[in-house]
């Protein structure tokens, strides 16, 4: 235990928040190491020494290796970390907003809302919505996904909240019911898609970072970066909400505005993540929960730590996805679901719905 000395001579034992900050630092270092490691994983052999030699101009890579590193693995790494951090943070924000640790954009269906927005834009962007698509340019699918996620979250919040309290049963059941409706609409639109659109939809639906290129990064990264940069400012709101809306109001939070900001933050980060990577589940559930059981629920460090864990988990899962059945590639969504599904059941069994 580190001891801080006060001016009046008393010693002050460090609480878990001091420990938590140390862990955030350790996680940041680990995150950098994992990121570097992931650049070396794949069919082309690029060990860490060659990587550094290339970074510092000591040894030039072959043209082919250079393309693999800078045009394939780098954009994929950046997308992986942004998607992982965004999904984890939107999970943590949603759990704080709904005051329930089981609220996750994937579990309650917000990702489905985002999918609907994306599917509408993919299929109708060449016909009915061509004007909108032209105005938004590369941002058309991400923005459509954000709007889909936002609408879904708003409706879900209205269904599941009674006088500021969220009912878990209503939240999960409302998510299922809304998800069914959204699924039906997605099915209907898919039915009318042509061959090209169908191919695009299928790849996208599987949840994968394969085929991420720099233009794709540029189309969705800014949206995710905006929310991630706002995260430190959301912590006070979420801590206030944990003590109920009345206390949040007393400590200076404009509750109605804060709710709007939080819902928009969830919608943007989930929407942008889903638009680029499809259905990657459970990151938003697993990462904040791991932080909560080890470091505690204070959002000042819960958000950054969960973001880092989300990024690490996604980078690791993506690295596994591209080598486990090499030379083919497993969709990333399958790996996160294989790990996340049992984790979710474990959380339910240990009473996560009522205790945390």
């Amino acid at each position: 235990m580190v001891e801080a000395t006060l001016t009046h001579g008393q010693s002050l034992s460090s609480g878990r928040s001091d420990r938590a900050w140390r862990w955030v630092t350790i996680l940041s270092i680990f995150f950098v190491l994992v990121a570097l490691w992931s650049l070396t994983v794949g069919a082309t052999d690029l060990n860490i020494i060659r990587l550094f030699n290339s970074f510092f101009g000591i040894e030039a890579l072959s043209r082919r290796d250079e393309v693999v590193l800078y045009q394939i693995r780098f954009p994929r790494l950046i997308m992986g970390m942004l998607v992982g951090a965004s999904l984890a943070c939107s999970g943590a924000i949603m759990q704080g907003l709904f005051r329930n640790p089981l609220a996750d954009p994937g579990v309650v269906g917000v990702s489905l809302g985002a999918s609907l927005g994306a599917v509408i834009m993919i299929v109708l962007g060449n016909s009915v919505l061509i004007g909108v698509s032209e105005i938004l340019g590369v941002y058309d699918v991400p923005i459509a996904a954000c709007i889909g996620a936002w609408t879904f979250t708003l409706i879900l919040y209205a269904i599941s909240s009674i006088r500021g309290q969220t009912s878990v049963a209503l939240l999960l059941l409302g998510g299922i019911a809304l998800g069914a409706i959204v699924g039906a609409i997605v099915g209907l639109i898919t039915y009318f898609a042509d061959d090209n659109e169908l191919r695009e939809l299928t790849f996208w639906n599987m949840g994968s970072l394969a085929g991420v290129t720099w233009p794709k990064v540029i189309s969705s990264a800014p949206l995710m970066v905006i929310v991630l940069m706002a995260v430190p400012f959301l912590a006070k709101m979420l801590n206030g909400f944990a003590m109920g809306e009345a206390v949040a109001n007393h400590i200076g939070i404009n509750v109605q505005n804060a709710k709007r900001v939080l819902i928009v933050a969830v919608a943007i980060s989930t929407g942008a993540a889903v638009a680029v990577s499809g259905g990657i589940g459970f990151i938003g559930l697993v990462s904040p929960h791991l932080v909560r059981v080890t470091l505690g629920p204070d959002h000042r460090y819960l958000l950054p730590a969960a973001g880092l864990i989300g990024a690490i988990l996604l980078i690791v899962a993506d690295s596994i996805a591209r080598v486990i059945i090499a030379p083919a590639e497993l969709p990333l969504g399958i790996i996160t679901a294989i790990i996340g599904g049992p984790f979710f059941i474990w959380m339910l069994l240990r009473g996560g719905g009522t205790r945390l």
Partner: protein
Amino acid sequence: MSLFVKDLSVAYNKKTVLDGLSCEFQAGQFSIIVGPNGSGKSTLIKALAGEQRYAGRIVIEGQDQQKIPNWKLATMRGVVPQSVQVSVPFTVREIVEIGLSASPTRIKHPHRWHDALEECGLQGFENLYYHELSGGEQQRVQLARVRCQIWEPVYEDVPRWFILDEPVSSLDIRHQIQVMDIAKRFAAGGGGVIAVMHDLNLSAMYSDRMILLNNGEIYDNGEAQQVVSSDNLNTVYHQGWEVNIREDKKIPYVLPQIRN
């Protein structure tokens, strides 16, 4: 240097709880609102805390409460609710630091949470889980949180307001006195204290002014010797009450009349 309420009316559905209530609270005073159940005490304190919609005006230091942005209001007044349910397993220190996060002097005094815990008799509690504490301990943690938020009774020459909703309802007699002392010191330091209480004896002992509510209106308003009278109490509380005066301090105290 005051907080005043003008023509305050609140109605739930069709039931009028407060009907055109007006009064003024002075900074530097400990004002205590008393009255029977259903007299409108809680509604008045909720309106003062900004939790309750109302018709009329509440003016803090010359500004209409409804026009002051929340962040600014949080630097001018702190509110201790009767009880607070926390949805996540926060430690005591984390809760008190939430109060600190709303204080304008948080950067200058990052260890204020420690002073607040000490003041509320909670030294050594910082790493305990809030949800594992007793009701009375939780109430004192909330008090410490609000003290952190408004530590100085006067900030930048403007008095701050300390609003307490039945602050001693879950406390033993020792801690009741401790909490009342904290509030009294805040008023003595130049801040304004407004509390809702049920205990008439404690209120008479500590208050600079008492406001007796009945049926949503002010029945009497003044010093304890005036308000705590057998006439007032027998009308408002519909019982036989015996009011005596403590010889040493000239403070009234109330006993129920013994019925044979």
